[in-house]
């Protein structure tokens, strides 16, 4: 039996290899080494929830009708009997109440979508804080960033498909933002909606985007993303034996095939659990889209909250200064353009191009394969926390009615507080985080120089009491001392020795200022001679 199977396998392998030369490929991939760390699973969660989205999405396409034709409902759900609604909404109800497993699949799909966007952001944060975006991975960062944007597009187009009151209002908000675009805004709105809002073509168009265009782009970009991960070989956390020139870990086959493959099923299991037990987007309670009703406490899906928060926060007029301007009879709504387009563009632009900014500002040009511990890059970590603070304030403002209700606060006071907080708190967060990182670095120095406190008190013959400190073992010490200690760049003098002004001096000074911003305050790692001196002291 065993030999027969082996023969069959060998025969198949031979057949395939003679036609594809897959042998070299398998040789290259099968025992490829991947390092182990829990944070490397965040990207996997994103990938796996996308696969769950594809599987559950195929199920849903079998029952969803992407049509805005108006019908009168006559399905099994009692409170909607006879209500006018689009076919899209009716088919969503039918999927939920007449297809066994249909509601489960809808909920699995929706939970998976929320998990997809969330895991992408957490994965991005991991990559950012550990410096995994540095050379040679800048392009892959950009691909990952595009995937993040695509996940938002996938989420929003999907959220809008059931054509319920909430999704319809979401589209109406999009329409409002689009119309604010100078000159061509109304035309873009007509282009999207096929005429006046809401029109009769939007759902079919969103459907095509949601099931074809966006997923195809995501799939292609994922393939590229993973190809580059293989090409670059995975980054690794610092530790004994780990250098920029090697990768230490376990082989893809069988260890990661089992671990990562198994993890897919765990992610699927978690999503299935949520789909089975936690109701999400109960559109049958909201009712079909109608431009007139809306209730308090309406929230978009979480990943849109930051834009919604910005829209809520931006005042129409502040201290008598209006943010809607009429110039030569034409209307320019800065109260929409700033939160709806300019803020996201600046935020996303900064995120997309940060790797180049940092490389340029710090002048660091080598290939980096060992990750930074976040504390060892205090300014970058500070920037990251500042951006997260900015984002979280927007998300909180996006749910300000819920927050105000929950904590019995005045909605208006909360919004006014956030209007200040959005400018102040990120700066505070930056400074506090930077200090925190440097404090941790000093703690590392302290541990390397003086070891761990053991709690054992020893009395010397001469009556002196000391606490015994246990030196770090060499692995722990290596992690604490093995990081780059980069000094700020030095500017060449503005005039050369003959007194002639040097070209580009001003630019150099600007770069020097940036370099100082990154590296002025720094804690250098302990050197062996320092350690020796410290030991001498005792």
């Amino acid at each position, binding site marked *: 039996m065993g030999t027969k199977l082996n023969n069959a396998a060998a025969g198949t392998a031979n057949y395939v290899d003679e036609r594809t030369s897959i042998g070299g490929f398998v040789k290259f991939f099968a025992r490829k080494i991947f390092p182990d760390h829990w944070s490397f699973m965040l990207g996997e969660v994103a990938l796996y929830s996308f696969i769950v989205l594809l599987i559950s999405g195929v199920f849903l396409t079998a029952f969803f009708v992407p049509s805005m034709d108006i019908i009168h409902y006559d399905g099994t759900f009692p409170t909607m009997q006879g209500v006018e609604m689009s076919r899209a909404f009716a088919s969503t109800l039918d999927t939920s109440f007449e297809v*066994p497993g249909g509601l489960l699949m809808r909920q699995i799909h929706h939970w998976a979508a929320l998990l997809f966007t969330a895991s992408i952001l957490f994965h991005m944060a991991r990559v950012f804080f550990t410096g995994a975006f540095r050379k040679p991975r800048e392009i892959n960062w950009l691909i990952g960033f595009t995937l993040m944007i695509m996940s938002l597009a996938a989420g929003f187009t999907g959220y809008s498909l059931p054509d319920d009151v909430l999704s319809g209002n979401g589209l109406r908000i999009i329409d409002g933002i689009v119309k604010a675009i100078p000159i061509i805004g109304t035309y873009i709105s007509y282009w999207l909606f096929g005429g006046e809002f809401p029109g009769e073509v939007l759902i079919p168009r969103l459907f095509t985007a949601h099931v074809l265009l966006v997923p195809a782009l995501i799939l292609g970009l994922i393939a590229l993303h993973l190809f580059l991960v293989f090409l670059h*070989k995975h980054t690794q956390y610092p530790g004994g034996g780990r250098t920029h020139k090697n990768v230490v870990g376990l082989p893809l086959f069988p260890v990661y095939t089992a671990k990562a493959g*198994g993890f897919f099923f765990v992610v699927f*299991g978690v999503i299935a659990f949520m789909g089975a037990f936690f109701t999400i987007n109960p559109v049958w309670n909201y009712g079909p889209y109608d431009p007139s009703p809306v209730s308090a406490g309406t929230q978009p899906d979480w990943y849109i909250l930051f834009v919604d928060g910005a829209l809520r926060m931006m005042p129409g007029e502040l201290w008598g200064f209006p943010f809607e301007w009429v110039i030569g009879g034409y209307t320019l709504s800065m109260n929409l353009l700033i939160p709806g387009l300019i803020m996201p563009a600046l935020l996303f632009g900064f995120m997309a191009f940060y790797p180049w900014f940092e490389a340029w500002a710090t002048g660091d040009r080598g290939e980096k394969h060992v990750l930074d511990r976040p504390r060892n890059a205090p300014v970058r970590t500070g920037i990251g926390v500042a951006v997260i603070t900015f984002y979280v304030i927007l998300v909180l403002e996006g749910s300000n009615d819920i927050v105000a209700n929950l904590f019995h606060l005045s909605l208006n006071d909360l*919004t006014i507080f956030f209007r200040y907080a959005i400018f102040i708190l990120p700066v505070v967060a930056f400074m506090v985080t930077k200090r925190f990182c440097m404090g941790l670095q000093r703690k590392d120095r302290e541990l390397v120089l003086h070891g761990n406190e053991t709690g054992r008190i020893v009395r010397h013959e001469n009556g002196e009491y000391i606490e015994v400190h246990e030196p770090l073992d060499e692995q722990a010490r290596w992690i604490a001392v093995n990081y780059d200690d980069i000094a700020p760049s030095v500017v060449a003098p503005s005039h050369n020795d003959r007194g002639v002004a040097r070209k580009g001096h001003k630019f150099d000074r600007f770069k020097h200022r940036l370099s100082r911003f990154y590296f002025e305050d720094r804690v250098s790692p302990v050197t062996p001679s320092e350690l020796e001196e410290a030991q001498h002291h005792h």
Partner: protein
Amino acid sequence: MSQSDQSQETTESDSFQDPGVPYHRPRLADKDPKAAKRAERQVAAMFGISILGTVIAIWAYFGLNDMGEDVKSIQQTNTVIGIGVMLAMFGIGWGAIHWAKTLMRDHEMVEERHELRSSDESREGAIQNLKDGVEDSGIGASKEGVPRRGLLKGSLITAMLVAPLALLVPQIGNMGGDWNVGLLRHTMWKKGTRLARDPDGTPIKASDVTIGSAFHVIPEGLNEMGHGKLEAKAKAIVLMVRLDPRDLTIQPGREDWSFDGIVAYSKVCTHVGCPVALYEQQTHHLLCPCHQSTFDVSDGAKVVFGPAKRPLPQLPIAVDDEGYIIATSDFDEPVGPSYWDRLKTPDGTLTPEEGSH
């Protein structure tokens, strides 16, 4: 040579030595065959749970499905199928991971990296190949015998840039419907249209409107519309309230727009167009639940808080012979969110109202 490389070199003399890959500690299953056998049984049991989960899901589909057609039973079916799927997935996942963690290799291996940059040789080869190709094509610097064909390069690029328009112009051109953005200026309201209740469409008598009450209003006849009903409704929704006339500040030029304390305002928010549906009787404030723009109904629906800049447009109303409330005209400005030329009439001049300012 870059800066960081240099600094690394200079500190080489006084830096710690890499201690190498940490010592590998064997696991219980590595040392004890009994523990290994136990782990094997655990993994098999987890795979067994997965199979059980699949059975549960299929049983729930067939077995629970014909219990009834009501909503409750189908929800039960859904939950049980979900439990089955969950176990089917968890079983495989945990089994495989447990297998890897207890029985597969956990002794770390080292693989060397190579600089990503191609070798100088292959770079030169690549450049040479490209050069040769360029020469063969004649688009670059000419070699003997191959004349330079600059005309081709320019015309090809132009053709390639222009060709997509042949598809895009008809496609994009068709997507906007009739492109009649002038429709945004008008709503269904006109002189004599009765104000009717939303959603049932029955007209409202002035005598029905008590002080302090608020009515969600649509134009009479909207419900009977077939095509374009939602588009019309999206612009025409109105909120009507009756205030004590002493509380009402009538806006200059709008003396005859209200009736005995009854005022009607567009329900489409001037921010991004959500329905401004929440009326607070005590403060006479209208609140938009989407972004909390707050309008003061007693004072021309001016903005008192939030992101909106402009007051809600007012619908001029009167009462007809039968006592029903009617509109005396359409809104005098476009309703809803601002857009670039909202103050221009289609022929490019300012609207009369704006021009008089």
